[in-house]
C-alpha cells in the first residue's frame, strides 16, 4: 500500500462511519439533545465559527504562553539541578513526587489568587508542563555528563562549550519526548480550568452549550479540542524530527 492510500483509507473509513451514523440517527429518531446528527454538528461549525474561533484563540493563547513559560522554567530547573549537586538532591525527589500530583485540583486555589482571567490557566499549564520537562532534562544532562565527561576532560573543553555542544544536544531527544506528552495533555487542562470559571475560552463555550442542552455545540467544541491536541503533538514530533536529525551511532 502506498503512503498516500495508507493515510486516505482511515479518513474514508471515519467518513463512512459518520455517514452511517447520520442515516441510523435519522431513522431511529434519537432526540437531538442526546445524540445530534453529524450534519447538525457541521452546521454549528458553519454558523458559530466566529464565536468558536474567538474562544479557541483565548484558550490557545493561554496554553501557548503557558507552554512557553513551562519550557523556560523546565530548562532552567533542569540546568540548576545539573549544575549543583546540592540543588539536585533537593529538587530531584520533589520533581519525582510532582509527577503524581493531579494539578487540576489547584485550579480553584489559582482562581482565588489570580482571578478569572488568563493568569490561573497559564499557571496551570506551567505547572503541568514544566515539571516533566525539568525532570527529563535533569536526568538526561546528568547521563550526558556520565557518557561524555571523559571526552570533555580529555579535550580540555570548557564547561560552557561542553554544555552547549555536548550535554544539551544529548538531552534534546528526551526534552522533545517530555514536551510531546505534556503539550497535548496541558491543552485539556487549560480547557478544564476554564470550565471551573472563566470569562471566555473554549471551556466557557463548552459550559454554555452544555447548560442549554446544545449537544451539537458540545460535540463541536470537543472536536476542536481533540483537533488542537492532535495538531500540537504532530507539530512537536515534526520539530523533533527536524532538530534531532542524527542517529545515535555505536561509536
Amino acid at each position, binding site marked *: 500500500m502506498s503512503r498516500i492510500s495508507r493515510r486516505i483509507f482511515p479518513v474514508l473509513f471515519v467518513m463512512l462511519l459518520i455517514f452511517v451514523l447520520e442515516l441510523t440517527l435519522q431513522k431511529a429518531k434519537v432526540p437531538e439533545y442526546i445524540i445530534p446528527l453529524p450534519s447538525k454538528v457541521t452546521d454549528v461549525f458553519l454558523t458559530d465559527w466566529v464565536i468558536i474561533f474567538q474562544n479557541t484563540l483565548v484558550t490557545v493563547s493561554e496554553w501557548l504562553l503557558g507552554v512557553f513559560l513551562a519550557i523556560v522554567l523546565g530548562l532552567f530547573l533542569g540546568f540548576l539541578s545539573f549544575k549543583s549537586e546540592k540543588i539536585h538532591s533537593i529538587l530531584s525527589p520533589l520533581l519525582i513526587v510532582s509527577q503524581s500530583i493531579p494539578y487540576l485540583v489547584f485550579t480553584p486555589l489559582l482562581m482565588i489568587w489570580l482571578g478569572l482571567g488568563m493568569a490561573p490557566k497559564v499557571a496551570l499549564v506551567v505547572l503541568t508542563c514544566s515539571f516533566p520537562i525539568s525532570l527529563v532534562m535533569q536526568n538526561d544532562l546528568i547521563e550526558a555528563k556520565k557518557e561524555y565527561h571523559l571526552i570533555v*576532560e580529555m579535550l580540555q*573543553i570548557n564547561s560552557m*562549550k561542553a554544555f552547549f555542544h555536548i550535554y544539551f544536544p544529548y538531552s534534546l531527544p528526551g526534552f522533545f519526548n517530555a514536551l510531546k506528552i505534556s503539550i497535548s495533555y496541558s491543552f485539556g487542562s487549560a480547557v478544564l480550568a476554564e470550565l471551573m470559571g472563566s470569562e471566555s475560552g473554549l471551556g466557557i463555550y463548552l459550559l454554555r452549550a452544555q447548560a442549554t442542552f446544545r449537544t451539537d455545540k458540545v460535540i463541536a467544541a470537543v472536536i476542536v479540542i481533540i483537533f488542537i491536541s492532535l495538531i500540537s503533538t504532530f507539530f512537536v514530533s515534526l520539530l523533533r524530527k527536524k532538530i534531532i536529525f*542524527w*542517529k*545515535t551511532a555505536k561509536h
Partner: protein
Amino acid sequence: MIKISVENYSYQNKEPVIKNINITLKEAKITSLIGASGCGKSTFLRVLMGMETGATGQIEFKNEDFSFQKWNIKQKLFSMVPQVPHLLPWKNILNNIIIAISNEKVTKEQKSKEEIAINALKVVQLENHKNKFPDEISLGMAQRVSFARALVLDTQAILLDEPFASLDAHTRYILQEWLANKILETNKYAILVTHDVREALFLSEEIHVLKGIPSEINKTFYNENRNEKSNIKTEKEIISLIGIN
C-alpha cells in the same frame, strides 16, 4: 625523550593502585604497556592525562621536570585515544575535530579552525568524509577520527588506550600498521596500553609487563625485530607472565 616515573598512586587515598612505573618514551616510537584486565593500565594513563591527581613522581621532558603533585587536567604533554571514540552523533566528522581545537591554537597558527581540522583529517586520510556523521562511518574510521582529534591538541605524546579492542580482526590489522606509520610520520611519542600480546609485539620495540597489586613493571621486553617469527617465544613468555586474573 620523555621519562615518566610514577612512584605511587592510590585511588582516593586508599590502597595504592600503581607503584614504581618508570618508562622512557622515544620519539616516533610506540611503547607498550601490557597486563591483565584491571591491572591499572588505564589508571596509569589517567594519571598521565591529569585526570587522576595525587600521584607521586615526575615527568622529565627536554630538561624540564614536572612533578605529579602539580600535574592536572590542563597539562599539554599528553592526549588520548580512548577505547571507544565517543564521537558526538550530532556533529559531522569535521565538527567533531573542531570542538577539540582551542582558540589559542587558532591565534598561534593563524589558520581557521576548519583549516586545522581538515589538515588533521588529511593526516588520517579521511578528508573526503568530513561531512559525514558518526553513524555513517565504520568503527575503524571513527577510531581514526579519534586519532585526528588527539592530533589537533598538539601534545607531545599520544596515549592509546586499547584503541583496537573493539575492532574486527581485519580492520584491526590494517589500523595497527597504519597507526605505527602515523606515529612515525607525525614524530609523536606514544604509549599503547593493551592486553593483546601480539599487538604489542607487532607495534612496539619496548614492552613493559604490568603485574601485581599494586601494579608495577614486572619485566621489560626489548623487541627489536618487530614482526618476526622469533617473537612467538617472547609472546609465550609474556602470556605466561601475565597469567590468569
